[in-house]
Structures are given as C-alpha cells and as structure tokens.
C-alpha cells in the first residue's frame, strides 16, 4: 500500500471518528451543531502543545486532548444546551468560531494563524485504524445500552421522555460531552498525521462538513454515518486532481441528496437491519 493510499486510510479513520461524535449528538440526540470543528481544534492543540512543549508521550497526550475537549464542551454546554432547534445551531457557530479566533489570536501560546509545526508524526495507519475500530466498538455497544436509549428518547420526544423520568438536560449534556471527546481525539490524530496544525483547518466549513456527512449517511444510523463519512472522504481525495471542481461537486452532492433522499443513505436504520428485510 503506497503512502498516498495509506494517507487516505488514515484520513478516513479520522473523519469517521469525528463524524461518529457528531452523529451521537445530531443523529441520536437531535441537537444540531455547526461548531464541532472547534472541539477538533481543542484536541489537536492540546495534544500538540503537550507533546512538543512538554515532551509528553503521545498516547496520554491524545487522551488529554479528548479530555480537554470534554472540559470545554462542558463549559459551553452548561448555558447553551437550554437553547433549542436553530438557536443551538446558531450559538454553536458563534462558539466554534470564537474558539478558532482565540486560537488564532493567542500568539504566545498557539503561534496564532501561522500554525503549529513540528508535531511528532505519531498517527500511523495502524494507530488510526486501531483507535477507530476501538471507538466504533464502544459506540455501537453504547448505543444499545441504557444511555443510548435515553438519547433516542430525548430526541424523539423530550417532553414524554422527561415525564417517563429521564433527566433530559443531563442526557443532552452527556451526548455533547461524548461527541466532543470523539472530535477531540479526531483532532489530535489529525495533528499527528499532518505534523502541522493551523486554526483555519478547523473553521466553519469543516464544522458544516461534519454535520453534512452525518445527514448524508442518515440521521440516527451509526453505520450510515461511517459509510457516509468514508464515502465522502474517498470522493474528496480522489477528486483532488480536479480540485477546482471538487467543491462544486461536493455542494451539488449535498443539494441533490437533500432533494432526492433527505433521510440519507441508510435512513435511521443500521446496515444489518437490511438483511432480514425487517424494519425497525
């Protein structure tokens, strides 16, 4: 497998991890976010600064990146998760951009817009694949657990769910923290793959891409999310030669999917639900 193919595999794993995070929040809990690239940025910067400045080994540094994303998400979530519908989405744009701008202006700590070079290339194909598979197994198990049902209940009808005794604000918070953790890890891995990070890598465009991928795969379908994310990464990478038209195709694809199949590739079903022909 050549270096180029290997890079695509790594990118696919990273994008799938981030998309799984967003899928937990948007697909399974029904909270629409447009700022999750900021959590990737937090994870990437935390890991980069810990490994480069403080010489900490990359494995604990990546975990620290994920935990830092959780901390920031908790601080953000406390006040904003009360907002519903479009308002949370708009607030997440504002917060996501604010985090990016802070990283860009905090010259002494992050080196600002010039970016942060010299990160140890710890993200190899093996690490990326192992972390992705590990997280995927955890995710699927978790979605079948009590907490997973809690998320779906608060998505489908939060009023009824809280009447049934679910603490829906807590559920929403748990979903946000979990999704921020995934994105933090994805960001940390991206830093280790590129050896270089820059605030502009985590702008609103990246955030909308994450959400768009989840919708493309199917809201409420984790296998759909992974499939969609992998497909979009492949398309975007193999079309790199005609880079001018790449974004045009991507935009058209978004519109066409929304027009002809708004429920996404798999709808709300998981891929193995199709085998028996039975609808859940």
């Amino acid at each position, binding site marked *: 497998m050549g270096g180029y193919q290997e890079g695509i595999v790594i990118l696919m794993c990273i994008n799938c991890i981030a998309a799984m995070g967003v899928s937990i929040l948007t697909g399974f809990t029904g909270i629409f976010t447009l700022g999750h690239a900021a959590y990737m940025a937090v994870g990437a910067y935390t890991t980069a600064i810990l490994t480069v400045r403080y010489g900490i080994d990359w494995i604990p540094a990546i975990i620290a990146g994920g935990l830092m994303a959780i901390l920031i998400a908790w601080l953000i979530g406390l006040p904003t998760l009360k907002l519903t519908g479009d308002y949370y989405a*708009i607030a997440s744009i504002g917060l996501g951009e604010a985090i990016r701008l802070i990283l860009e202006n905090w010259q002494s700590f992050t080196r600002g817009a010039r970016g942060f070079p010299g990160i140890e290339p710890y993200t190899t194909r093996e690490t990326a694949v192992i972390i992705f598979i590990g997280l995927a197994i955890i995710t699927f198990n978790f979605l079948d657990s009590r907490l997973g049902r809690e998320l779906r209940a608060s998505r489908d009808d939060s009023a009824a769910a809280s009447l049934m005794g679910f603490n829906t604000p807590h559920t929403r918070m748990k979903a946000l923290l979990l999704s921020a953790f995934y994105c933090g890890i994805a960001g940390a891995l991206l830093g280790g793959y590129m050896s270089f990070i820059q605030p502009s890598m985590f702008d609103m465009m990246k955030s909308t891409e994450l959400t768009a991928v989840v919708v493309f795969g199917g809201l409420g379908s984790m296998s759909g999310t992974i499939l969609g994310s992998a497909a979009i990464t492949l398309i975007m990478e193999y079309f790199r030669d005609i880079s001018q038209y790449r974004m045009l195709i991507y935009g058209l694809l978004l519109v066409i999917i*929304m027009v002809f199949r708004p429920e996404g590739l798999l709808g709300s079903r998981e891929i193995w639900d199709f085998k028996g022909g039975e609808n859940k």
Partner: protein
Amino acid sequence: MQQIINGLSLGSVYALIAVGYSLVYSILLFSNFAHGGFLVVGGYACYYLLTQWGYSVAISMTGALFASGVTAIITERLAYKPIRERTTTTLYLLIASMGVNIVIENLFVVTVGGRIKALPQNTFPTGVFNVAGITLSASDIISLVTAVIFLSLLQIFLNKTRWGLAIRAAACDIRTAGLMGVNVTFLISLVFFVAGVLAAVGGIFLSVRYSLYPQLGSITTKAFIAAVIGGLGSLPGAVVGSLILGLAEMLTAGFISSQMRDLVVYSLLVIMLLIRPAGFFGKAVSEKI
C-alpha cells in the same frame, strides 16, 4: 464619532442583507445559508455589466439586482421546493442551502477564477467631506442613504400593498394563508426575489468597500448574527441588530484592535442567545410538540 459614522454605514450594509435573510426566515422558518451566494451573484453581475459590457452604473446595478433576485427564485424552485413538499424538517433545507452556497461560490471560482476583482473606481463618487472635524466619505453616505431608501421601500411594500399583506399573513401562518386563497408558491418566489435583490444591493456595496471575490458571501454570517441579535424573522429587529453589530465592530476596531472585532461579534451573539434567545424583537418560539 468618526468610528460611529463608519459603524453606521457598515451596519446599514449588514441591515440590507439581514433583512432579506430575516424575510425568508419569517416565511419558511429556516436559515437560508445560500443568502451569501445571492450577494456574490449580485456583485459579479454588476462587475461584468460595468466592465465587460460597459453599461452605465444605473443599468448595471438594476441588472445585478435582477440577476440576484432571479437566482434566488431559481434556487428556491430547484432545491428548496422539492424538499418542502416532502418533509417539514427544516434541517434538510438548512443543509441544502449550505450546498447551494458552496455551489454558487465555486461556480464563480471555476468560471471566473478566485482572484480578487475591484469595481471601477468611478462607480460611486469618492469625494471626502470634512464636517466639523469629521471626515465623511461619499461612499459611506451613499450606502447609508441607499439602505434607508431600500428599507423604506420594503416597508411600504409590506404595509401598503396586497402582496405585502399576503406576506405578513404567511409569516404568521403559511398554511392558513394558503387556505385563505393566497398563492403560496408565487408568494415564496416573491419573497426570495425581494431577498435576492436586497442581498445584491449589499453585495455591490461590499464589493465597493472591500473588493469582489467568490468567498465574499461568507460575510453574511455577520448578517445572520445581526438577524439573531434583533430576533429571527423580525425585520425591525434585523435592522437594529445590524446597526448594533456594525457599531460594535467599528468601535472595537477603532479603540481596541482590529483583530478582536470578529471575536467581539461572536461574543455578542453568544451573550445575546444566553440572555434573550429570541432577540430584541423576536417572538418567543415555543417548541412544537
């Protein structure tokens, strides 16, 4: 004082964009992210009518407004209408509108290239006045005056005409308005046309103030924020929010640092959402059960 004038003039440009955006939101209850695309269409149409075909300023601008309005209608027909007919989830419209925005932006990247273009210097009078120690540039004044004219026209249109009445009715409840004999399809096209025209006016001013490039539409993020601060779907709210935003931006740039201005804008948005999510003039939206 100087900064206040600058802020008001920038705010008035935001207002033109934010009002169009808010108008669409008030009818269809979704955030039309393609609004920035309409703005870019207006800017480029004006540029090419002026420089390539050599029309006069007045004709070029009218053409640009028309082009942008028609683009908005076509977008609605091709992308949003089929989605609206299938589902009531506004999320899909939101994503589709992002897609449309990317398409429009990159159509320009592919066809005319990503390089920065400038409208000819003599598009607007460029004189500078000196009144009581304050320098006023003619373009600032023109953008203020034009914004006032267009917004007043819109106000008259909404309040005095039959179609204005229909739009206001649809903003209350589009389904009932349809049952009462309003041609909803035509009405939505009309709203998109008006929104496109307003975006084009904003686009022309922005391309004079800064310059013209395919990503110019991203400035509508600020107009969205203005609309949210004022209250989504409320037109006076959009105007007030825009002026506040323009002032905040210019005052920050003038007295603190120009790097902080975006940060201030986004903090304003977040603070506003936390204190009063419905904005200054918005009606509180109750969750649909």
